[in-house]
């Protein structure tokens, strides 16, 4: 049965959606221990996790510090969850909201891109990413850093 629930996060005006069942939890930024290292801005040590936390900018590049507007982080499911900070978080059901996922056009694909689909949300374009693809992308960004 198709799961229509997604976690929608916003950072720097960019909408990113991840399937809800691929998100471990939503946490507050105050629980992040600031410790920039290897591309990460810090660590999240709650709930038995030791999770690296990253900040992405509007163009999905890595930020080296946490912008003031970041209030939350989502932990992406993984052997060791990985955190991505955001300004806002929302829990949405795309079917109930009449939102339609469209595959990323083939001409827009790049080997490293974590984006699999797009959707029109709040009069903007949301980027839909699978958790595994996002984690792979973060690993790609932080290789040799």
């Amino acid at each position: 049965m198709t799961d229509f629930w997604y976690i929608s996060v916003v950072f720097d005006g960019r909408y990113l959606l991840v399937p809800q069942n691929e998100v471990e939890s939503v946490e507050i930024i105050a629980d992040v221990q600031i410790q920039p290292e290897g591309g990460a801005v810090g660590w999240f040590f709650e709930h038995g996790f030791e999770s690296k936390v990253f900040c992405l900018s509007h163009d999905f590049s890595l930020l080296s510090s946490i912008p003031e507007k970041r209030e939350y982080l989502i932990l992406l499911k993984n052997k060791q969850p990985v955190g991505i900070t955001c300004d806002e978080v929302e829990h949405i059901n795309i079917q109930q909201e009449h939102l339609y996922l469209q595959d990323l056009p083939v001409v827009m694909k790049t080997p490293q891109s974590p984006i699999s689909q797009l959707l029109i949300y709040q009069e903007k374009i949301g980027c839909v990413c699978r958790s595994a693809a996002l984690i792979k992308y973060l690993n790609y960004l932080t290789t040799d850093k």
Partner: protein
Amino acid sequence: MEETKTSRAWLLDFGEGLQAAVGHHEMWQIIISPTLFNIPCTPPCCSNVLIFQGNILPVLDIPILLEREPTSVTSNKIIGIAVYQDDPNHPIHYGCFHLATMPQNIYVSDDEACELSAQQRHWKALALSSFCLNDVAIPIINLAYLFAAEFHNNL
């Protein structure tokens, strides 16, 4: 006497001296100064999308695609929406490109067929055929291939 076939087409100006033609039925609409949305982690030749009738359409920058040195910043003023099918039994698709000027309605006849020049080899992979217009060879481009993964993977 053999009849010369004449077909209606659109002459497209992509800027940077790049012109091509498509079939008359292949241009769906022209949009002036639309809102474009930038998508991260995309190739430079196609980093924006347009919302059109509830669909999210890619917008190609042909000069960047064909690796032409830009002499000016690509304007968002004129966007052409093309319609194509990769197979007659498959659904139609829409794709967009930046245009430098409004498309021109032209008529192309079989006896205007000519070869692309050596300086136009950047069009070779995309051209179905070409014709001579005002002493310039104009490629008739394969839109389905232009927007296909196969073409972009081979770049």
